[in-house]
């Protein structure tokens, strides 16, 4: 009876996911094999949407742009976020202080995304604070062009996604007994081995989880590259461009290819460590 009850309890989540995730994805998969006619589609099987997309001269550029910006952002978030998560887990002793730090980390996320992005204009723009400071100090003679370059994209993405890296690493580190670190130090283990063999290895499920969170958040964001990286062409942007022209089969094919790229990266990451260990093992 209790066993059957457990299966009934997973039904609300399962039904929601089937109806609002699996069915839309299924429709997009089927649609991607339909013949495109403007505006819309004709029910006639074809693989031309995939072939024309994959063989287009822009595809390679879009793929490289998408992967290097998303993986790059996830990597920068890891480098900056890992020490923060370590300090948060082991150096902040009071639970009250931890609660306040968590809430202060969350607060900027309640400010609208677009406003948060345009706020960078006042800092990174040609008439912004950074250029004003550098010009007045005499370090530069003409304003630096940061906005509308990939550098601006990395800065904005790292700022908005850092939290998604810090939280999972904190969770993984929270399971590490601090006495293990002390024991290693008492046994005169060199610092780099304490960091790598104990701290980093224990946090690996959290690192991978955070990497996935940041990677997926950035790979699906086509608005930031279009606005702040000088109209950088990405796979996500191509989905939106096709859809805005009512080219549903091409938009679906581009979307499915984007999902396949995500799944390949996820598969590689899960080969390094199984994040199920963080969850229920």
């Amino acid at each position, binding site marked *: 009876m209790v066993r059957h009850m457990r299966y009934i309890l997973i039904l609300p*989540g399962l039904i929601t*996911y089937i109806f609002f995730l699996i069915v*839309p994805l299924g429709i*997009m998969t089927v649609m991607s094999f339909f013949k495109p006619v403007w505006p819309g589609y004709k029910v006639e099987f074809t693989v031309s949407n995939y072939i024309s997309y994959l063989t287009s001269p822009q595809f390679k550029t879009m793929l490289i742009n998408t992967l290097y910006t998303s993986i790059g952002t996830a990597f920068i978030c890891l480098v900056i976020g890992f020490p923060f998560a370590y300090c948060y887990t082991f150096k902040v002793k009071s639970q009250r202080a931890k609660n306040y730090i968590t809430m202060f980390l969350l*607060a900027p996320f*309640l*400010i609208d995304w677009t*406003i*948060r992005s345009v706020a960078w204009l006042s800092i990174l723009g040609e008439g912004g604070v950074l250029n004003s400071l550098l010009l007045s100090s005499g370090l530069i003679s003409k304003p630096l062009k940061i906005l509308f370059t990939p550098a601006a994209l990395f800065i904005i993405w790292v700022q908005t996604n850092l939290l998604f890296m810090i939280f999972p690493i904190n969770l993984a580190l929270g399971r590490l007994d601090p006495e293990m670190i002390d024991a290693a130090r008492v046994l005169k283990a060199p610092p780099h081995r304490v960091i790598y063999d104990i701290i980093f290895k224990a946090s690996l499920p959290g690192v991978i989880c955070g990497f996935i969170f940041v990677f997926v958040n950035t790979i*699906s964001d086509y608005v930031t590259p279009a606005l702040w990286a000088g109209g950088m062409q990405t796979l996500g942007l191509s989905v939106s461009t096709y859809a805005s022209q009512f080219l549903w089969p091409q938009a679906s094919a581009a979307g499915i290819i984007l999902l396949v790229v995500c799944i390949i990266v996820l598969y590689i990451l899960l080969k390094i460590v199984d994040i199920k260990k963080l969850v229920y093992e």
Partner: protein
Amino acid sequence: MKKSDIIAKIYMLIIFIVIYLPTIFLVILSFNDSPKILFPIKQLSMRWYTGQRELWQMNPSYIPIIHDWQFWNAVTNSIRVSGITAVLTCIIVTVTALTMRYRLVGRDILFYLFLLGFITPGALVGLGTVLMFSMLGVSITEWNMIAINTVYASSFGFILMMARFDPELMLYEQTAAALRVDPLRVYLHITLPLIKWEVLSAGIMGFLLSWGELIRNLWVARGTGVVSTFIYTQLTVYPLTTKWFAAGTIMTVVSIVGLLIMAELLSRGAK
């Protein structure tokens, strides 16, 4: 205080400054009298907050935020959409996470399904939902936005909640069950009190992710939409003015006050 503790605190402070840097300038510049986003500020004013609405102000970018009823409509819609998403996320995440602790048939498949909810790019979910409803001949409503936000937030909340469960929780439940305590009483008197903060965290996460989501919402937003889609649409049509920095400042103040109250409640609960 040890040297390493001081370095740790300085590092955390630097990261906070980086995270809050755009917010700091947003707040300062919102008091600039000029509509242009420029430094240095020549004249301070509250014009973009509470200034008079002139009849000639047809361009919404120049209407002081207090008079922009469309913005406040979007805020109301956002609170409603994010609030319902938070409640649904809480229910789905709690029920599924508690059940998934047991070795069920298809547990791994369900886990990957939840992961798929997170890794599927927003554009794909949004477009797929639009196509699905167009094929069904059903019009898109606010509930579609709530549903796709719930799927996204539940995936995130599910992983975070399961990772935070007390390892002893199952032991307590099994002990109570061995003593033939009614399952509902076990849930109400043992399970729920021990996981209430995880449930609250899942709700907060659901609210935040739904509030900030732009890509998914852009596809299914209709009418005024929610704050994220409304401001994005306004800025793609009309020029950027200081008015939007005033809107950001109001949201900053409200969210900081709200989250500080939450932090205090959590701290008292932890005692």
